């Protein structure tokens, strides 16, 4: 399955967060790791799309008072999602292999 750059970022952020991946933490993880402030709508559209593709699964958590009694929607990466993101990353690695760019040699 072909994944876009932002889709890969979202999947990797969810993988890093393990059991605590929901809207707020995913945005914060992406901002911390990549320095990119992403729009909430863009994130949720991507999450929906990844779920439709079968790369993500979601479940509703318990309502919390700090969220005005609203539940969190937790995301987990499926086996297909892991395969897709590793395939995409491997393709990048293959393309970088042997290229002496930015002073580093990607072997």
């Amino acid at each position, binding site marked *: 399955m072909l994944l876009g750059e932002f889709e890969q970022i979202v999947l990797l952020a969810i993988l890093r967060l393990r059991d605590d991946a*929901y*809207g*707020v933490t995913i945005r914060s993880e992406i901002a911390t790791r990549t320095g990119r402030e992403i*729009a*909430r*709508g*863009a994130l*949720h*559209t991507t999450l*929906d*799309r990844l779920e*439709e593709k079968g790369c993500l699964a979601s479940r*509703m958590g318990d*309502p*919390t008072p*700090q*969220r*005005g009694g*609203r*539940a*969190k*929607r937790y995301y987990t990466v499926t086996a297909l999602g892991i395969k897709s993101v590793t395939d995409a990353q491997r393709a990048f690695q293959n393309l970088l292999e042997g290229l002496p760019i930015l002073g580093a040699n990607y072997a």
Partner: protein
Amino acid sequence: MPKAVAAEWFLRLFTTPDRALAIAGDMSEEGRVSITDLIRTGASLFAGNIAGAPFRLLLLLLGGVAVNLICWDLATFALSYHTFGSVWNWSIVYAVTSRIVIPIIMGDLLVRFSTHRDMTACATHAILIWLLPVVWTVMRILATMNARPYFPWLVVLSTLVTWLIAACLLLASGIRTRKRFLAVI
């Protein structure tokens, strides 16, 4: 938290109720339930809905436009020949069906036939049914401008307002049908 409740209601127009609940919850947790943030989120979901099923939405829109055109043509035919009565009686029937009845039926049908992307279909169709008559009226006026002493702003303004009301009726009908559906689920 009335702001979060309004945000949830607004987001429910563009996504499923549980997703809208989660997004509104995220906004509350971050303490950022602002109108700009809400509009940006709604716009992203709206665009995502169109990108997710462009052909289905296009078919729905074309179907809607076809139904509208057929109704206008039928009304124009009835008006041209006014076989069954005076032209004034038929003008009222034309105005009522094309600007009140058809948008209400269309809103209802669009929600029934576009699961998960219902309000996106309604919104794009509402924009279309508002834009088409306005553009058509202006073009017709411009084409016959030589025979007119001035630009008839009143005609353009009344077209703009009446079709805006028709578009709002379509949206309201869509929201009402969606609410009924969600109540059943």
